[in-house]
């Protein structure tokens, strides 16, 4: 599967990694639900690191869309909330 980290690029990640990514994703979602900025930052970092280390980067000139998209590494909790509400963070 292809995973994009916003503002960073795309990775090909083996399908058998999905479970562990999902577990990290759940932790991130819980932190967002709780409004816990510190846990949010830690979970986001853990999730992005998992993608970066288990995946291999796609070349810049590929035109493939991603199966999963992750927030940028420096995103704040509020920004991710906005992103999920589709509140103008993605122009166009």
């Amino acid at each position, binding site marked *: 599967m292809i995973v*994009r980290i916003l503002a960073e690029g795309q990775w090909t990640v083996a399908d058998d990694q999905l479970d562990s990514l999902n577990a990290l994703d759940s932790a*991130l979602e819980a932190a967002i639900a709780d409004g816990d900025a510190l846990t949010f930052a830690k979970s986001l970092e853990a999730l992005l690191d998992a993608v970066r280390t288990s995946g291999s980067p796609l070349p810049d000139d590929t035109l493939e*869309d991603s199966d999963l998209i*992750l927030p940028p590494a420096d995103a704040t909790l509020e*920004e991710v909330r906005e992103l*999920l509400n589709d509140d103008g963070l993605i122009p*166009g």
Partner: protein
Amino acid sequence: MTLMKRISLIFRAKADKALDRAEDPRETLDYSYKRQLDLLSKVRRGVADVATSRKRVELQVTQLEQQSNKLTEQAQKALAVGREDLAREALTRKSALTGQINDLRAQHAQLQGEEEKLTLASQRLQAKVESFRTRKETIKATYTAAEAQTRINEAFSGISEEMGDVGMAVQRAEDKTAQMQARAGAIDELISSGALDDASSVGRGDDIARELEAMTSQSDVESELAALKAGASGGSPQALDAPEARPAQIEASQTEATPVAEPRKEEGQA
């Protein structure tokens, strides 16, 4: 549904919406390509804007560092003439300045990070736009409108996602830069007001230098007086008239009640 799946669906919905716009799918290709080029120049402008802000902060750091060095020198001078109070005042101001300098350095690092990110984003987008252009020409040359549709969808969704990503990155960089520019503007004002840049000319910032100067000129006056007394005991009134203006000036300099009005007073006497 996972967070990462939700975000990808949001991006895809945006791409689909954009794709529905054209009637002939092959027109969509040209339309999209034009938008890609627009976005590419927007990212490049973004890189240039962030670089401008970064340079501005660099300049400010240099100016504040110069001022900080000046305060150190003033403190040394003040100590040399036994005015610990003045030295303390100079060092107090220096420490306030140090805080500002550190703040600016942090901003500088942040701007540098944004600049690097946007530069990479523009490189990625450029590679994809080039790839899209090649594919667009192939599709237009080889396929009928009906056949073209699926190929276009494939090419389009990949680049749309990238465009959404890059568009967002530019927006975030602009927002961050705007915040920092507001603060940079305030510091520029402070510097151009002279309060920081030239502590020995105007306003509150100059009283240390002025006191040091006053002490120097006072000793000049004393030595000149001594020279006059020693040289011409029957001295002419004219010779004594001229230096008379100086003690008045010293008094003005030493009075700290209305520091802002003082430079005008001194000008009047000069």
